[in-house]
């Protein structure tokens, strides 16, 4: 039986993570359909149809789906579930919200935050903030899964899957969106960025975070933060990296003034290279970094931005 992947999208844009979730869905070995649920989603459907390897894109349009809600999306997925052997979403906010609710409706145990697929019923998932990896086997009749997108390589963009409509009648929104507080920023998507610059509470102020952002601009990088920095009001909550924030797997993670508490490390275990800038040579992050510089971030970071410019990195950025 086929696999259904729920597309993640926001403001009419397909989330970059979906190409990775599709890649994971294909590893289950069955044909993959992608479901785009929303109201004004033509562009999203077109972008989804370009993902390689899929059977078809199914579009469910309804005013009740205009903003993503667990009640409406899980009701839609419950209707479609009999056609599928597996239903898969990314483990970002929408997938985390929807998939367990759907699983309960189907009387199934979901397997969530999957980082490796060994077989169509055998998966790895991290537990205890990534300090242990659990390998689980699900011999249930259907699989209901979320995928940690950063653990999978995206499929290409050369596809041309057919787009079909799905009946979204009878789906009602129970909750109502009153306000969306968006972080205005032109930095790349944190969850899928190749380079991330992270700042800790020692950056000292929201003003101080501008310095972190300048370094990020120079490198074309996304910006991350520790929970301590977010709690102090120096950085917005959607920048938090860690067990309870975003999980990232960039090629390079540059940790500036971050101690490396295990809850923070949980979010960066997938990073290929880690760079640490810290005054304390004993900080756990310095111990695990590939390259560490012991020094004061307020002296190091401005110098680093200048050095990078001299080396011809990020010419057009406003570093």
């Amino acid at each position, binding site marked *: 039986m086929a696999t259904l992947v729920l597309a993640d999208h926001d403001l009419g844009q397909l989330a970059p993570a979906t190409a990775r979730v599709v890649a994971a869905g294909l590893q289950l070995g069955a044909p993959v359909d992608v479901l785009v649920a929303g109201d004004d989603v033509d562009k999203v459907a077109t972008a989804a149809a370009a993902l390689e390897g899929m059977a078809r894109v199914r579009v469910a349009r309804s005013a009740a789906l205009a903003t993503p*809600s*667990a*009640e409406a999306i*899980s009701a839609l997925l419950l209707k479609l579930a009999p056609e599928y052997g597996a239903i898969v979403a990314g483990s970002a*906010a929408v997938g*985390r*919200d*929807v998939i*367990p*609710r759907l699983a*309960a409706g189907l009387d*199934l*145990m979901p*397997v969530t935050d999957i980082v490796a697929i060994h077989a169509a019923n055998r998966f790895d998932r991290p*537990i*205890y*903030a990534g*300090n*242990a*990896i*659990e*390998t*689980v*086997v*699900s011999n249930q009749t259907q699989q209901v899964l979320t995928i940690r997108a950063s653990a999978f390589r995206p499929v290409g963009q050369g596809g041309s899957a057919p787009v079909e409509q799905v009946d979204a009648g009878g789906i009602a929104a*129970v*909750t*109502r*969106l*009153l*306000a*969306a*507080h*968006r972080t205005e920023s032109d930095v790349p998507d944190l*969850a899928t960025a190749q*380079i991330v610059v992270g700042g800790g509470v020692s950056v000292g102020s929201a003003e101080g975070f501008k310095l972190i952002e300048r370094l990020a601009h120079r490198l074309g990088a996304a910006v991350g933060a520790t929970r301590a920095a977010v*709690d102090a009001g120096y950085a*917005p*909550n*959607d920048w938090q990296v860690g*067990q*309870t924030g975003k999980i990232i797997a960039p090629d*390079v993670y540059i940790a500036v003034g971050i101690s490396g508490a295990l809850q923070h490390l949980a979010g960066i*275990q997938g990073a290929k290279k*880690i760079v640490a800038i810290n005054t304390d*040579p004993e900080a756990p992050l310095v*111990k*695990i*970094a*590939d*390259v560490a*510089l012991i*020094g004061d971030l307020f002296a*190091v970071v401005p110098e*680093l931005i200048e*050095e*990078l410019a*001299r*080396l*011809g990195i990020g010419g057009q950025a406003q570093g």
Partner: protein
Amino acid sequence: MKILVAVKRVVDHNVRIRVRSDSSGVETDNVRMSMNPFDKHAVEAAVQLAEAGKADEIVIVSIGPKQANDVILTALAMGAHRGVLIETNERVETLAVAKLLKAVADEEKPDLILLGKQAVDDDSNHVGQMLAGLLGWPQATFASEIKAGEGGLEVTREVDYGRATIALPLPAIVTADLRLNTPRNAALPMVMKARQKPLAVRPVAEFGIDISPRLVIDKVSPPAERPGGRQVADTAELAAFIAGEVKELEAL
């Protein structure tokens, strides 16, 4: 308004855990246990609603071994009114936890059920959503602010793009994120008083719910070790390293 709060006893979040050498799981013998941190925020939210005159009864429920009484007592000391322990020494999966909580909700008929957004041991992040699905109630997960009005709630949720404020009717499920509030530490007199509050211990069998696991845990392994790296002497050397990495990425 009557509030039910689900709390879980977990390995304390400050403990550095160890995977058993036979890959059967994580060593939990003789390690410090405490209330799941997210659940403290859920209890605190309930107590604040009671203090604001919006709630008149707070019932705490936990599923786990006899020792889980300790976390119920912690919640009672914070200001909750009574507790229910559903006692089991078995591994209880999230679906079974949600079914047991539904059975309690059917008996207690709360207007609001508060849970933590995730437990820091299994990191599942399931139970609130599953319970909402089983009850057919609306849900507001990852809450960083709760406002109670007439017959409904306004909840601010932490989402991928920042925060979203939603309105939902009662009865409802809310799961707590860490920025919801600052949980109080119960003063000694409250801890003493907690022991006087009603705490029912009920064997899991009483509920007649099949809790046999659906998933097989094949093995539990430690994560890949990160070999430590090197220290560089100055910013120029650091910049050269980073520039090298960036150029390699651009070449791909």
